[in-house]
């Protein structure tokens, strides 16, 4: 009992203390609105732009989720290819690392120019490009490090490769997969926002942020940050919940 109360109360207190400190900092320094926003400025900002927050937030959300979904499909497929074939791993790994090393901010203008006008497409594309890497790597490592005995247990009974994959390789990779998915969900979110901010086309929370910036509307900009944080947290904990369902067995008992 006590434990549950603590798990809830402690974070709430931490957040309240943080907001109070922030409010105090702004008040103490006497920062004007065009320089810094205080927590007390946020509710009015949300209220003023509420319909915008809803529609823009939805756009950011669905594009992130679609990008992430594609990243999961493609990353898993790539990971399987690299996990099962030594040759393919040797061939693809340097390419993949090189691609991942490119800062994605530099890719934004290129993608924006290539697919000019196709805002949904290029935003989803960026979310996808930035987030498939950890998934591919984790799946390939999970598959290639499977101890041979695990295979042998089923193979010695005449099981097919597909059976071994479904019964052993896939479930055994799930903890690594979800670990990577937690990273990927955050990355996809960054990808979406990067495209929305750098290549403004009036859609998504990134665009709302940009309009706040052009008007030096600090309360609006901070409200967008809070909204982004909120969406990011929601997505993250959806992944955590899925992990609990599908890979809960991998959790070590506390203590």
């Amino acid at each position, binding site marked *: 009992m006590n434990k549950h109360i603590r798990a809830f109360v402690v974070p709430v207190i931490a957040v309240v203390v943080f907001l109070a400190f922030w409010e105090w900092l702004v008040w103490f320094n006497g920062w004007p609105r065009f320089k810094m926003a205080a927590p007390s400025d946020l509710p009015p900002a949300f209220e003023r732009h509420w319909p915008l927050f809803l529609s823009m937030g939805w756009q950011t959300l669905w594009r992130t989720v679609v990008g992430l979904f594609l990243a999961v499909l493609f990353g898993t497929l790539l990971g399987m290819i690299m996990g099962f074939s030594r040759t393919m791993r040797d061939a693809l790994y340097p390419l993949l690392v090189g691609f991942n090393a490119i800062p994605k901010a530099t890719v934004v203008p290129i993608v924006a120019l290539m697919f000019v006008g196709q805002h949904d497409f290029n935003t989803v594309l960026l979310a996808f490009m930035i987030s498939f890497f950890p998934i591919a790597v984790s799946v390939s490592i999970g598959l290639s490090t499977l101890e041979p005995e695990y295979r042998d*247990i089923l193979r010695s009974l*005449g099981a097919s490769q597909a059976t071994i994959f479904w019964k052993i390789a896939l*479930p*055994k990779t799930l903890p690594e997969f979800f670990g990577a998915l937690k990273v990927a969900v955050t990355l996809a979110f960054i990808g979406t926002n990067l495209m929305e901010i750098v290549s403004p086309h009036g859609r998504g929370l990134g665009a709302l942020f940009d309009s706040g910036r052009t008007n030096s509307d600090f309360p609006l900009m901070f409200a967008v940050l809070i909204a982004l944080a909120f969406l990011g947290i929601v997505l993250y904990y959806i992944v955590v919940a899925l992990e609990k369902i599908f890979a809960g067995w991998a959790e070590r*008992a506390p203590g």
Partner: protein
Amino acid sequence: MVSDQRGVGCAGDTGFGGGMQNLIEIKGVKHAYQTDAGPLPVLDGLEISVPEGGFVAVVGPSGCGKSTLTRLIAGLMKPDEGEVWLHGEKVKGPRSTVGMAFQNPVLLEWRTILKNVLLPLEIVPSKLSRKQAEDRARFLLSLVGLEGFEDKRPSELSGGMRQRASLCRALIHQPDVLILDEPFGALDAFTREDLWQTMHRVKEREPFTGVLITHDLRESIFLADQVVVLSGRPARTQYVLDVPSSGPRTLEDLYTAVAAEQLNILRHQIQIAQGRSTAGEGAA
């Protein structure tokens, strides 16, 4: 009194032609791994035969090819030369009449112990209904002393208990041949002796023909009725020691003069195997 010991090359009991009375026949098996540094010969003319219901222990220097041998018997690999016969049939690939357990118990963490034990029945066609299969799994688990742990996860079990569960999984589909590759190697001495006795109990209730790889000489003479010593890599059959027994064995038997002499012979043979890889003929 120590029973008949013989070096290989003396007339074996391998019947020619018709009567294939041995359940496992390994005839002139040679195998080499292809590595970056060229072929690595591992087995060089192995001869082992195990009669039905027999239990042979294979000992030999580390890295001499014992695990390779188990993979050949299980049909996971094909030998370069020579043949492996099971039940009068040449082994061409994996077959469901084989059960395996390794030093690493490789239980699936996301399954309960019961579901782990039942795993082979999801691959091997079985006459058992779901209920019968479950009853059989429960019976095996109680036989090895894991009653009450059916619904636990592997992570909740000790190393010895996991090894017991792994043994049950190897037996669930009633294999003719049980292949054990250093199954007790990672356990402490007391747990290991406990499991030896469990093995005897299991063999009484669930007859099988066994091949046990081990590096523990006491284990080999306690469990097996024949101990095969392999030479260093590339391995060949260097020496065969028969370990006859009258009635059930007890741990006390390991401290008799007979056992001491058997252990001495085996130790001597292992030293030869470690020293010169081709020596060993006509020892003792």
